[in-house]
């Protein structure tokens, strides 16, 4: 329950901090409605649409309603996929409004003990701290390799976890050992005549649990003609914090990253996680009220580029790429598409692979329901969205689903597990597939 005191504080802060011009910029035409996954999946409930949420935010500012449980529910239910933004003719920055509203609510509302504990572990303990992230991943590796995982599954211990967490446990990738996690390069040369100097944003989850994908990313960059620097002092991008009402922490992380990359002298800062990339490009907005950091954030933000975008620019798709015969399909990363506007490049790259037949799935740009920690905290809606997604995937008859963000990758794996399709369908990150295609094309004939 939100107490009377909390409601008052939230309302006052809404009045002080919400961007009223931006709220008025929504002229309520409803063009966003067909693009909103929660509006569709809730059976066209306006309270779960972008237009409805903006109306609620404005009503709280105007004092027409209190920020009660139902208002919070509407905002919590939002995936934050921002699919409403590119279709908005008025150009409303919905993502910024949502972030601000959530920040105010979560900073002023006493959460239940368990929710608070989860949030604290994730936001304060784990993600900002790369060495803890590594330790955590190391522990997971120990769990997977020591037989504990088998034991846990055999003893039925897993039954005590909610269904989607249980499946999630099964789909986590086999993680690298602690030793591997600690020996990360900080500089790599181009393997062909150099075209660009880039800095690599390795990301916290990507550089631990998905280390192999990071390695593949760097290899591709080297093959495409990039010298790579990987600043050691970089941190988590802060997206999870920013999207979940922990804006202050997100700002601290942003400053650390800006400082880490400022002296790299790189043409671009490369990311391979759509979620991180979008948040990094938003640093200028995040720090807009900080006179010292605002210009530095802007200089940082313009350099952010997704791996598929830089590969496309360097004409990686003109190199020989080949795979055994198979159908592949692509699931957009919401933030890569809706915020970074990168959606043609990954498709171009995939279509250039000989042997693979690219088939676009229906509504490929609709969110898969992963959305940060959404699939854990709003699992019912998340699974409903995932079920729809899996229907579209299956219609393509694809063997390989390609994603561009770790959250989407895990969610799609979850989808495959839930549908019992693990034997004839796989999910890969686009860079892993491109590396596979690059190497397959170069195999000696007959091997």
């Amino acid at each position: 329950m939100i107490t009377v005191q909390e409601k008052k504080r939230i309302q006052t802060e809404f009045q002080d901090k919400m961007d009223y011009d931006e709220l008025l910029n929504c002229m309520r035409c409803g063009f966003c409605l067909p693009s909103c996954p929660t509006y569709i999946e809730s059976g066209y409930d306006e309270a779960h649409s972008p237009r409805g949420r903006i109306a609620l935010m404005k009503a709280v500012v105007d004092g027409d309603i209190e920020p009660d449980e139902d208002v919070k529910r509407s905002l919590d239910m939002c995936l934050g996929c921002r699919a409403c933004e590119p279709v908005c003719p008025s150009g409303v920055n919905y993502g910024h409004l949502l972030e601000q509203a959530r920040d105010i609510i979560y900073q002023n509302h006493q959460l239940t003990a368990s929710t608070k504990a989860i949030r604290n572990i994730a936001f304060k303990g784990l993600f900002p701290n790369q060495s803890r992230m590594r330790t955590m991943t190391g522990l997971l590796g120990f769990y997977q390799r020591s037989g504990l995982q088998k034991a846990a599954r055999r003893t039925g211990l897993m039954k005590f976890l909610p269904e989607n967490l249980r499946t999630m446990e099964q789909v986590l990738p086999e993680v690298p050992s602690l030793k591997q996690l600690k020996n990360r390069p900080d500089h790599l040369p181009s393997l062909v005549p150099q075209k660009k100097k880039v800095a690599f944003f390795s990301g916290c989850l990507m550089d631990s649990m998905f280390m192999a994908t990071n390695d593949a990313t760097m290899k591709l960059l080297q093959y495409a003609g990039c010298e790579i620097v990987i600043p050691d002092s970089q941190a988590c991008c802060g997206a999870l914090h920013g999207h979940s009402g922990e804006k202050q922490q997100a700002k601290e992380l942003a400053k650390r990253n800006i400082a880490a990359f400022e002296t790299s002298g790189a043409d671009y800062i490369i990311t391979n996680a759509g979620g991180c990339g979008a948040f990094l490009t938003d640093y200028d907005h995040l720090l807009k009220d900080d006179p010292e950091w605002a210009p530095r954030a802007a200089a940082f933000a313009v350099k952010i580029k997704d791996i598929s975008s830089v590969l496309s620019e360097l004409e990686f798709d003109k190199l020989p790429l080949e795979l055994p015969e198979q159908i592949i399909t692509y699931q957009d990363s919401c933030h890569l598409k809706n915020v970074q506007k990168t959606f043609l490049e990954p498709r171009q790259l995939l279509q250039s692979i000989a042997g693979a037949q690219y088939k676009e799935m229906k509504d490929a740009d609709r969110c898969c329901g992963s959305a940060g920690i959404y699939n854990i905290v709003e699992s019912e809606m998340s699974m409903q969205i995932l079920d729809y997604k899996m229907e579209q995937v299956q219609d393509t008859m694809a063997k390989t689903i390609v994603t561009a963000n770790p959250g989407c990758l895990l969610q799609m794996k979850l989808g495959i597990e839930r549908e019992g399709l693990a034997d004839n369908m796989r999910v890969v990150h686009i860079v892993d597939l491109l590396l596979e295609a690059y190497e397959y094309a170069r195999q000696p004939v007959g091997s």
Partner: protein
Amino acid sequence: MLNEALKRQLTAIVGPENFQDNKASRLVYSYDATPQFQSMPDAVVAPRNTEETASVLKLCNENKVPIVPRGSGTNLSAGTTPLNGGIVLLFKHMQDIIEIDEENLTITVQPGLITLDMIHAVEAKGLFYPPDPSSMKISTIGGNLNENSGGLRGLKYGVTRDYVMGLEVVLPNGDIIRTGGKLAKDVAGYDLTRLFVGSEGTLGVITEATLKLVPIPETKKTMLALYEDIEAAAEAVSSIIAHRIIPTTLEFLDRPTLKVVEEFAQIGLPTDIEAVLLIEQDGPEEVVERDIAKIAALCRENQAIQVDVAKSEVEADALRTARRTALSALARLKPTTILEDATVPRSKIAEMVRAINDIAKEYDVEICTFGHAGDGNLHPTCLTDVRNKEEIHRVEQAFEAIFHKAVELGGTITGEHGVGAMKSPYLHLKLGEEGIAAMKGIKQAFDPNNIMNPGKVFAKSERKRVVVQP
């Protein structure tokens, strides 16, 4: 407020999951796409079928509780804002295509179906449903029927009304009636079908409709004509029609509108000229070729500085789609955009465009104009700020002057958006007091307790803006 007994009864009819009355739910159904109008309903109810709809109406009629039927809330005349509270009726459970009859060329649908979904289903069968309101991706057929919506293809093909053959309607007393049918000819009694189409939810609730389909045109071509002079563009419109050519679409966009639409759509629209005409013709290939060539010549005769024919359907579709975003894109410029849809006979279009510009100057307000120039239906849109009371007052005066001018030219106060609450104070300009009295008589006959969408169409004497009443 609804009393507890009534809430229990409504919940019993539609099921607990389809009755909502918490504040957040009520707030998100307190508005439509019309600026400056907002009012909280007492509850939001979603019946699952015609019978439940009838039970809800009967109950509300007995208890004199207002009912506002609502599609997707894209209305532009405040027609779906619950100004007197009561119940907002949703059709999210009634979205089915009941039948596509390929022998009689009809489609029978439920009101909650999204317009574009229906158009896609129809076109998959090689058939054509022409009415295409700009909001068709969002709007429902029920909303289109109640508002008698138009669209870009209205010039050649007419509006929603011209495609409605039969309806199932629930009356306020709970009676379920059927009007018309799959009949090319039918003169059995009054034409209630036409009466309900465009009645803005003030007479009853449409629960099913049978619509006419036509064969899909063989080809279509789309072109843009560029002008340095707004009035020259308007003259070209009249000239095309006077030369006995009826294009499918003949749209007008002025410079500021072009600029914001291009900013959003980024398809390479010209932004350094005063106006464009977006023209489309469909039909057999040789007719389309001939008409497009003639239209291009007429545009040039009327001072077009450039005429470009779209090279592909992709390009043409991008142009049409961009045009549909005009109103919302204008919202980029100012916090509040207020639009009207005064309509004049086609021959008067240049005169009307001139008058709008003069009126904007006279009242010192910023008006952009776009619209369906070919059928005389313009959308002068005022860019303003709802917080600036003094300017809003001038905006209202300017629109009043525009309405007077339109009627003076033999036109009307609204071509396709409906009267709703926004234009009700001006209805008398078009109908006269006797005309309004005749319409009130009809309203009284169907809805003696005035529960159906009260406060719409017929106005209190003065123009009154309503704020949220929690």
